[in-house]
């Protein structure tokens, strides 16, 4: 029964996993390039974002095929709908990794004056969220997905902390205002990645949870 359909769903799942791996790598390396001021690596990340975009298109096209050919219902439909929504969040994470890389190219010209410790902590927390969200998807684990959503508060809190520190630094007029402003943007990108990871987790719950609900998660 439904051999082709199950194969197509498996294929979709594999592509989702490979797109997840791509963005995980992009954000890890973007942070690495930022911390080590590695311009070459940063430029490579910007270039590789194209691959993420291409993967998104590929997954969307698989989903369209599935909708047309199989007219899915019930959990099948939820899985496919969720995949179509998730790739949007995943693609945005890819963009934000590229944005951080772009800032890195500028930031790498001078040694860092603001403390980068907090950025390190912030990036660690968001990457953890992303990895966990992807795991929740692969393992279809609702509990893990819920943990990701809860963890977003930690990231939001850190964001505020880093922001306040950077503002305090700017007020001192130590000549690092420009760098602090760029760091603030990096900080914001990381915070957004946390939001996207949280969205991914919500879609995991949507596809796994059998409880009736009338609306899609926002």
């Amino acid at each position: 029964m439904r051999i082709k359909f199950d194969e197509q769903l498996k294929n979709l799942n594999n592509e989702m996993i490979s797109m997840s791996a791509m963005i995980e790598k992009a954000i890890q390396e973007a942070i690495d390039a930022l911390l080590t001021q590695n311009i070459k690596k940063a430029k490579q990340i910007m270039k590789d974002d194209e691959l993420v975009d291409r993967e998104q298109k590929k997954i969307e096209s698989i989903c369209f095929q599935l909708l047309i050919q199989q007219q899915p219902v019930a959990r099948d439909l939820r899985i496919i709908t969720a995949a179509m929504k998730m790739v949007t969040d995943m693609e945005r994470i890819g963009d934000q990794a590229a944005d951080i890389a772009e800032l890195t190219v500028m930031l790498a010209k001078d040694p860092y004056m603001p403390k980068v410790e907090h950025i390190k902590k912030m990036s660690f927390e968001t990457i953890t969220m992303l990895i966990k969200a992807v795991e929740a998807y692969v393992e279809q684990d609702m509990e893990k997905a819920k943990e990701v959503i809860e963890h977003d508060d930690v990231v939001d809190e850190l964001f505020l902390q880093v922001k306040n520190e950077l503002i305090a630094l700017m007020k001192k007029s130590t000549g690092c205002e420009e760098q602090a402003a760029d760091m603030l943007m990096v900080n914001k990108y990381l915070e957004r990645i946390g939001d996207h990871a949280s969205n991914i987790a919500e879609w995991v719950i949507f596809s796994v949870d059998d409880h009736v609900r009338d609306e899609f998660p926002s």
Partner: protein
Amino acid sequence: MMETAKIKVKKLNLYYGDNHALKDIDIKIRPKAVTAFIGPSGCGKSTFLKTLNRMNDLVENVKIEGEVLLDEKDIYAPGVDTTILRKKVGMVFQQPNPFPMSIYDNIAYGPRIHGIKDKRKLDEIVEESLRGAAIFDEVKDRLKKNALGLSGGQQQRICIARALAVCPEVLLMDEPTSALDPISTSKIEDLMEDLKKKYTVVIVTHNMQQAVRVADDTAFFLLGELIEFRETKLLFSYPQDKRTEDYITGRFG
């Protein structure tokens, strides 16, 4: 799920000889809505549909227990006139089956049997019924022609018009589009949207996408049992019974 019910079925059991074909069916069918019955072949959905206007009475060795209430009145109670019942609860079958007579006479047949003789009144009923079945414009210039000369899709709408001509309250449709091409199917589906404004429509279909498109509520039958019955959009997005999910997602083997 609903407050009012046009049809209420309580603990309905049906046996064909030793074969227990319907088991403890309990269901409430909403008025002025489309209700679909789905399920694999032999699950009892057509048998159940036929119990709603006592079409099974004619089958040999059939035994029916339980209640079928139409507007709170048991249609299996002694003294119920099945001719009047079937006037109220009309039926359309899988294969279009117009009578071998003119289009006009096909539609006028029922009203004539029920005693209407006035030509003007009959003309009125024929036109109204054909309009109700969205076929009037296609046949208005050949009402005297034999209905068997029409296409399958047109014949099916003639049969719907014939059912409408006796002013039914409920319309039962047993796979009404399975013998039709996609365009005729789409016309009948559009028609159902109109019909439910005035009638309670119950349809048996093998085409699940059709149930999704036309039905407000859907009931899933399996091996003579009613497994799950809920709003169509919920049944097809969050089926609560594993068997329903397996069936609608094509996992039955």
